[in-house]
């Protein structure tokens, strides 16, 4: 069933309509951006309801950042249209900018100012009155756990602190739509968890969130809907559970010492797998997608009973690579 139909991007009910569908969330219809001969984004359709989270999932160069730049008015679409918070990004850029917060991949806080002043200046530039900018800056410093560092120069900050400050900078004007380009790339697991908590709180408060990520886990944890992008195009859309169903859960990898045992090992593992196996003759590895109920001990025991010598067995979560392998291979594993 995974023919080219899954590549069709527009699964939103009612999203086929014209501009009447503009709402307080985010919409894109056939959005495309060409740099010289290269289409960085092509035929992108999005429909993100207010108060929901969309995860744009893809490798480097998939077009995620370009998509964000178009939606945040930083880059002009070559074709198609988009509306954010009910306003067209091309014709009503100023209205859009008044309602959004943007954190790009590069941290864009000023390293030569302290954290508090960074926020106050951005608050002023977001057209907040002076007192409101100051109050809001103090509020956000507390909320993002930066109180102790508030009066330190940003150049002394760790990566995680800069990310948090960057996020605070986006939140000054209480945006209704928030765009975060790979918010947790380069963060340690602890900082990542902290940031996720903050983002969940924001969304619970009614903020619409669009984030890009290379991590399947991040999209899974945060997003209501996921759009998988590859080479500028959307290759699959759905809720995290829908996508997980398609890609078939965890992976078990079994490595054997001899080439001759590869097929035999495959035969033993096959009953555990939810789909076809992949046998790699170079690394002498059998990879199988398995359901949550499969225990690795059972697999090892079965291999042992069959008298197959095993060099290594491991179980891992499906990665972005597995997603692409599954979603972009016609007739791939169900």
């Amino acid at each position, binding site marked *: 069933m995974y023919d080219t139909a899954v590549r069709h991007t527009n699964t*939103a009910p009612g999203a086929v309509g014209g501009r009447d569908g503009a709402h307080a969330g985010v919409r894109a219809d056939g959005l495309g951006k060409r740099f010289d001969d290269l289409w960085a984004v092509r035929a992108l359709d999005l429909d993100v309801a207010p108060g929901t989270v969309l995860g744009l999932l893809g490798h480097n160069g998939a077009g995620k950042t370009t998509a964000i730049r178009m939606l*945040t008015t930083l880059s002009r679409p070559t074709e198609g249209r988009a509306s954010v918070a009910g306003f067209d990004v091309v014709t009503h850029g100023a209205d859009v900018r008044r309602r959004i917060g943007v954190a790009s991949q590069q941290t864009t806080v000023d390293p030569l100012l302290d954290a508090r002043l960074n926020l106050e200046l951005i608050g002023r530039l977001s*057209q907040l009155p002076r007192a409101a900018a100051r109050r809001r800056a103090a509020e956000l410093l507390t909320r993002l756990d930066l109180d102790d560092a508030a009066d330190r120069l940003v150049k002394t900050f760790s990566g995680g602190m800069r990310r948090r400050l960057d996020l605070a900078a986006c939140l000054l*004007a209480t945006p209704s739509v928030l765009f975060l380009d790979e918010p947790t790339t380069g963060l340690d697991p602890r900082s990542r968890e902290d940031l996720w908590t903050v983002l969940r709180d924001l969304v619970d408060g009614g903020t619409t969130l669009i984030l890009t990520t290379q991590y399947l886990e991040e999209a899974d944890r945060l997003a209501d809907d996921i759009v998988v992008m590859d080479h500028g195009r959307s290759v699959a859309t759905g809720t995290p559970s829908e996508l997980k169903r398609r890609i078939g859960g965890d992976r078990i990898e079994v490595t054997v010492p001899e080439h001759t045992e590869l097929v035999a090992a495959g035969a033993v593992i096959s009953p555990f797998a939810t789909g076809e196996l992949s046998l790699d003759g170079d690394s002498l590895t059998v990879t199988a997608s398995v359901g949550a109920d499969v225990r690795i001990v059972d697999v090892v025991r079965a291999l042992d009973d069959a008298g197959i010598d095993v060099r290594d067995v491991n179980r891992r979560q499906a990665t972005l690579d597995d997603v692409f392998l599954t979603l972009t291979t016609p007739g791939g594993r169900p």
Partner: protein
Amino acid sequence: MTAIATAPHPTSPDPTAPVAARPTRALLADSLVFARRNVEHIRQIPEKLLDVTVQPIMFVLLFGFVFGGAIAVDGGSYREYLIGGILVQSLAFGMFGPAMAIASDLQEGVIDRFRSLPTARSAYLLGHFLAELAAISLAITILLLTGLATGWRAHTDIWHIGEAIALLALFGAGMIWVGTWLGMVVRSPDAVQGIGFVLVFPITFISSAFVPIESMPGALQWVASFNPVSALAAAVRELFGNPVTPVTKDVWPMLHPVAASWMYCVLILAVAVPAALHRHRVRTTD
């Protein structure tokens, strides 16, 4: 996509929500915020001010006392002659401040943040301009005080002195916009230094800023006579009542330095401002 739009969306007016101010007032207010950012940078890195404070003093002392003895100026002392030249040279070098600052902003991606805010686009450039204008005012003040301390005097009335300062300010403003343009043309902040040494250094030196034109070889005399820096230095000297060296090539700018200087300054502004605005549009549009 499945819509999970149950979370309430804030629709009631929020006291902290941005208010749309009147365009011109907002532009000015935003520009002042950007200018404040530059001032804060100087507070963090005071060395940034060296080029408009210590450097001009150094030039006055270096030329006044080291080279001064070897340079003869008819009808007055070299130290009186020097101040007009150094004022113009310092303002010409004033283009590097904005060029470096803007090139750094572009490199660091800060500019993307500013662009995603509801500010007028030109507020960013105007903010840099206001901050640099303050810096060159400081430079002019420091230079005049250093001049007074080393024997320079203005021998004219308040109107001529005022015109000299107005002319210098206009030239300084022009050079800030040249620097603004340059900052958006170069690929990195480091390149600004390089261009400074191979281009601006010779331009300020092949002029009457430091030495009388008559002491140069014939071909260079032509270059120096048409060099705006020569006209400006001569104009400032004339307006201050300081010694002016003889005109060796009878070209209009040297015969009427004050009028020529006003024209040069207006011309620089008329070219540099639109070029900078255009370049800004190009660099921040993709």
